[in-house]
Every structure is written in C-alpha cells, then in structure tokens.
C-alpha cells in the first residue's frame, strides 16, 4: 500500500492552483517570439533598407518581386502575426499596470484586441490575395507572359 501523500506546505491553493498558466505562458511567449522577431525584423530591415538602393527601391514592383517567392510570404506572415501578438501582449501588460478603473481597463483592452485582430486579418488577407497584375496594363514580367 502506498504511503499517504501530503501536499508540500507552500503549495498554492485556490485560484492559483486552478487558474491555469496563462500569465506564465504569455511571459514565455514574449521571450520566444522576441527571439524569432529579432531574426525576422532585422532580416526585413536589412533586405528592404540596407541592400540595393535602400528606401528608394521600394515600390509596387519591389513588393511583387518579394511576394513572388513563398519564402518571403511566409517570412512576412510570421512577422505580422508574431509582432502583432507580441505587441498586443505588451500593451495588455501596460494597461494592467497603469489603468486602474475597471471600466477603463475593459475599454482599453477591447480597443486593443479589436485593433490587433483587424491588423492581423487585414495583413494576412493582403499577403494571400496579393495580385501582381492587379493593373491590367502592368509592364511587370510576370504579367506580360500571360
């Protein structure tokens, strides 16, 4: 027969024990997504602003050239989702720290979650529905071959 087990004296009770690990997970997420974003964002800035003619090279054709490659589609999609969720979670922490009134907290968080959702959905749609030949008179190579 197994010996009866006693809970350690400092083990959490009540809310802490039942509450799940959301805050721990979000804390871990900030560190994990932060490391991924380090690579994604610096790669994005280096390729778009440092290589070639820098800021002057960016126009519709430049975007079309990048998104012709699934590699950059996945890159930008991952960057979009991770950056928005990382930023949303950061702002959630800041609201928790500074907004005192219950109604203020609720209003700010509603606005935050709604705004984040809109940007993620909009950005995702743009990446997946991008059409390099949206202009019928386009002179881009991909459009002239048709």
């Amino acid at each position: 027969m197994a010996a009866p087990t006693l809970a350690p004296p400092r083990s959490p009770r009540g809310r802490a024990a039942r509450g799940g690990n959301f805050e721990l997970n979000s804390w871990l997420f900030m560190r994990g997504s932060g490391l991924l974003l380090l690579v994604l964002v610096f790669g994005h800035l280096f390729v778009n602003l440092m290589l070639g003619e820098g800021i002057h090279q960016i126009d519709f054709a430049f975007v079309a050239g990048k998104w012709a490659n699934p590699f950059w589609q996945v890159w930008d999609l991952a960057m979009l989702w991770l950056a928005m969720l990382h930023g949303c979670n950061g702002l959630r922490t800041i609201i928790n720290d500074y907004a005192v009134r219950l109604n203020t907290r609720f209003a700010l968080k509603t606005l935050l979650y709604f705004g984040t959702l809109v940007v993620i959905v909009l950005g995702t749609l743009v990446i997946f529905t991008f059409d390099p030949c949206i202009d019928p008179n386009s002179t881009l190579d991909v459009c002239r071959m048709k």
Partner: protein
Amino acid sequence: MWSWVLHRITGVSIFFFLFAHVVDTAMVRVSPATYNTAVETYKNPVVGLMEVGLVGAVLFHALNGVRIILVDFWEKGPRYQRQLTYGVVGVFVVLFVPFVIRHLTHVFGG
C-alpha cells in the same frame, strides 16, 4: 530602471507604427499607383529621419530584450546584469551608426 522605461516606450511606439505600416502595405491591394504614392511618403527626408528613430527604437528594444532573456534564463545573467547593460549600449552603437550612415545616404543622396 531606465532600460525598463525605454523598453516600454520603444515597444508601444513600434506597436503603433505597425498599424500604419500594415495599412500602407495594404495599398498594394488597391492599385500599384496608390501603393507607390503611399511609400513615396517614406522617401520624404523628414519621414526618413523618423525612420532613423524607428530603427533606433527597434534596435534598442531587440537588444534590451536579449538582455532580459539572459537575465531570466542564463544562470550568470543576474550577476552580470550591469555588464549586459553596457553590452546593449555597445552593440547598439556598433549597429546603429552604420545604419544611420547608409540610410541617410539613401534618403538625402537620391
């Protein structure tokens, strides 16, 4: 303390920029001309200088984030936290100065 304050300020600033940035990029779904007009804004010298501020914010936030990760997960992190802060400042200068030179050459050099 100050790096904690700066981490929050840069984080919030970058997050708000993302709203503008996703919306301007979304103009590729309207028409090439609309998108080109939108990115033309970024090539303006004043906005070019603001981009320097933006990249500075991203750079600090990223490097300070690495410092936080090292303090949290590396067993010797807390002991070397002061040196890590100097490291953040050092690496920031090493990466930021070449960026500013190259970017402003693009912005003002045509």
